[in-house]
């Protein structure tokens, strides 16, 4: 672990290691084996291609075990074969040739990888890895954050807080409402994420079923291709070059990028509110804040999240700009880049976990919130000038500007000012009753 090149596989492996099942080299090999196995079963049992004999239930089970119960040794063996073939997908094919031999089904050998270009296997393998990794690991972690944010926004729905625009005091809001803003943004992105489709193709070397049709002109290969791809839980692509164009992947990456940007915005805001004392952080026993200043409780979780979200988004941006571009039918630039997709999910996941941990430590410092509100009676100037406008007072804004800029305004001064106003009595009373704490508009009910 200490010798791992990337911190994801070293320092942070406990936090993000669950993604390795999907996105590691072994995960990729496993996924490729799965596609090859299912394609063979499809050809023999569903399509019943002339010249093939179907696999019986026992054979199917044994064959499927090759990927469902994928062993580390399988990956080792395939890597060893790759050293000779210098081709990773071909190595899987040879591995399977040996496997069918062991099952006494050498008759199947010609139909392993039948009609396929490597990309037919790869694109489906990657689509499955992404789908499974996102659905089983990423989405549940995202939902945890959203659920927590919902809970906080409900708990502090009515807790007034001075807002800040440009870093300066602004019309009050509530703590809950500020979280609600973030929750709404995340919710919108999650809705899009859930609708993401994982695209795939199975149509031969240049996307035209050339070899398939020459060998079996009587078969409806387009329908077969669709049925097979959809059966894997992947959205079928009819029109492709040699490669699946990766536009669907780019959509997923961009969606994560937007999610990450919202998470980053949230991390920075929380960092800032903590530095202003609006939130305290519960101290975890044994945790050290600063190596030299014992009193400190640093907002490290939010800083960790911010840093890792940055790395994740740099990668995601590159993926979604790089992967859809390939010279003519294809070049190999995608193949080396796509191997890194797990890294982007890894840095994202690391950030989500830090953020979640940080959220769990937050404690609203109501005394501090009140203090700021009480010291900023000038916040009511917006309220007063808007009421003045309602009653047709000409220079409302200027009057308030005069009163509030540059000097400290307190309750007395505001009250005295309100008394001088030429507005109906009930409006005046409403204004006199208003405090920075109650001037929260609809924040608690929105």
């Amino acid at each position, binding site marked *: 672990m200490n010798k791992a090149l990337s911190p994801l596989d070293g320092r942070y492996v406990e936090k993000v290691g669950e993604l390795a099942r999907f996105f590691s080299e072994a995960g990729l090999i496993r996924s490729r084996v799965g596609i090859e196995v299912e394609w063979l079963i499809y050809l023999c049992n569903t399509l019943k291609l002339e010249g093939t004999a179907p696999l019986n239930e026992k054979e199917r089970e044994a064959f499927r075990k090759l990927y469902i119960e994928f062993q580390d040794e399988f990956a080792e063996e395939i890597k060893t074969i790759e050293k000779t073939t210098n081709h990773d997908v071909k190595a899987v094919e040879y591995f399977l040739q040996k496997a069918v031999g062991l099952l006494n089904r050498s008759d199947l050998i010609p139909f392993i990888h039948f009609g396929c270009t490597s990309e037919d296997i790869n694109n489906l393998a990657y689509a499955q890895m992404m789908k499974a990794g996102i659905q089983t690991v990423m989405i549940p972690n995202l*939902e945890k954050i959203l659920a927590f944010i919902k809970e906080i926004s409900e708990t502090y729905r009515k807790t007034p807080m001075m807002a800040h625009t440009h870093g300066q005091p602004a019309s009050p809001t509530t703590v809950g409402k500020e979280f609600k803003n973030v929750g709404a943004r995340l919710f919108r992105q999650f809705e899009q994420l859930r609708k993401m489709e994982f695209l795939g193709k199975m149509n031969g070397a240049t996307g035209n079923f050339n070899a398939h049709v020459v060998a079996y002109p009587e078969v409806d290969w387009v329908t077969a291709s669709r049925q097979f791809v959809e059966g894997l839980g992947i959205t079928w692509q009819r029109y492709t070059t040699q490669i699946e164009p990766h536009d669907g992947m780019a959509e997923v990456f961009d969606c994560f990028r937007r999610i990450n940007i919202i998470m980053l915005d949230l991390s920075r805001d929380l960092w800032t509110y903590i530095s202003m004392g609006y939130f305290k952080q519960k101290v975890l026993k044994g945790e050290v804040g600063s190596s030299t200043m014992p009193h400190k409780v640093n907002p490290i979780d939010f800083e960790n999240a911010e840093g890792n979200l940055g790395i994740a988004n740099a990668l995601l941006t590159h993926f979604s700009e790089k992967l859809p571009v390939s010279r003519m039918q294809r070049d190999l630039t995608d193949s080396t880049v796509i191997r890194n997709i797990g890294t982007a999910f890894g840095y994202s996941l690391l950030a989500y976990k830090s953020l979640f941990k940080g959220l769990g430590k937050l404690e609203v410092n109501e005394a501090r919130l009140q203090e700021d509100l009480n010291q900023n009676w000038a916040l009511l100037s917006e309220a007063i000038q808007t009421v003045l406008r309602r009653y047709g007072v000409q220079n409302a804004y200027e009057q308030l500007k005069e009163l509030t800029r540059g000097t400290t305004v307190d309750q007395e001064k505001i009250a005295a000012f309100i008394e001088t106003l030429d507005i109906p009595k009930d409006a005046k009373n409403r204004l006199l009753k208003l405090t920075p704490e109650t001037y929260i508009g609809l924040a608690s009910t929105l």
Partner: protein
Amino acid sequence: MLTRDLIASQILHVLKGTNFTNLGTRYEGKVRDNYTQGNRRILITTDRLSAFDKVIALIPFKGEVLNAITKFWFENTKDICPNYVEAYPDPNVMVGKECKPVMLEMIVRGYITGSTTTSAWYNYEKGVRNFCGNVLPEGLKKNQKLSAPIITPTTKAAHGDHDANLSGLEAVERGLVTMEEWEQLSKYTLALYARGVEVAARQGVILVDTKYEFGRDPDGKIMLIDEIHTPDSSRFWIAATYEEKMATGQEPDNINKEFLRLWLANQNYRGEGEMPNIPEDVIVETAEKYIKAYEMITGQQFMSQPGEVLARIETNLKPYML
């Protein structure tokens, strides 16, 4: 059917929740209060109605109705699949074995319908011909009966209702279930659905599709858990008008569980902001819908002893108090 007056008078006694301190470790679900005592779980179905991810109202008799529907079906299916219930000590209460849930929801569909992105019809209309591992023929019409029921499992979402479709093979591949478990679950699912269709048909009701959840009991045996063939977990159509509605291109008549949600939507409430006040007659009508659903699905008359619910439960649960 209970009279509206009687239902209205029960509003006073709705079961909002329970807080027994000597019944075990308490866990509050959306609708049920659960108490765990080692290998035993006590499930109290309250009158809470949840929508928009929160409790929006308390509906008299709702807990009792849902509990009764589930009891009816558990009793009517235990010969084909064991379920986790050991006793029904009170109209609102089930006592069952504490089971470890299987991380897969088994959805079975006899008809091609639905409008959400995970529904069979939505996907079919988009051109999908292999839905969750089931090959679908060309030329199907919306709401048409399938030649054989299909199983379309979904992942169990930890938060919210955002399950995702997948095929049985995908579930096995992700390690959510083993191959053997998948086969066993599929067998149970099809058998339970067939029984549900048969029993509902006697009442002139079509069990269109439904969802089952399974778990393993402390001995590792697979059992049916949660609820079964309730309006919350299933879609029901009225058989008498189905053919006619299909012929004229209309949506089939259904047993509607969305009454209150639709009422709120009509008041422009969709889960955000202050909820409008729900008048008593709307509450009563919602209760009537639930009671009617019970009677239509089970073919039995809903019998209830109106009055104090919480006290009754407490008395009936005495033997289980620690």
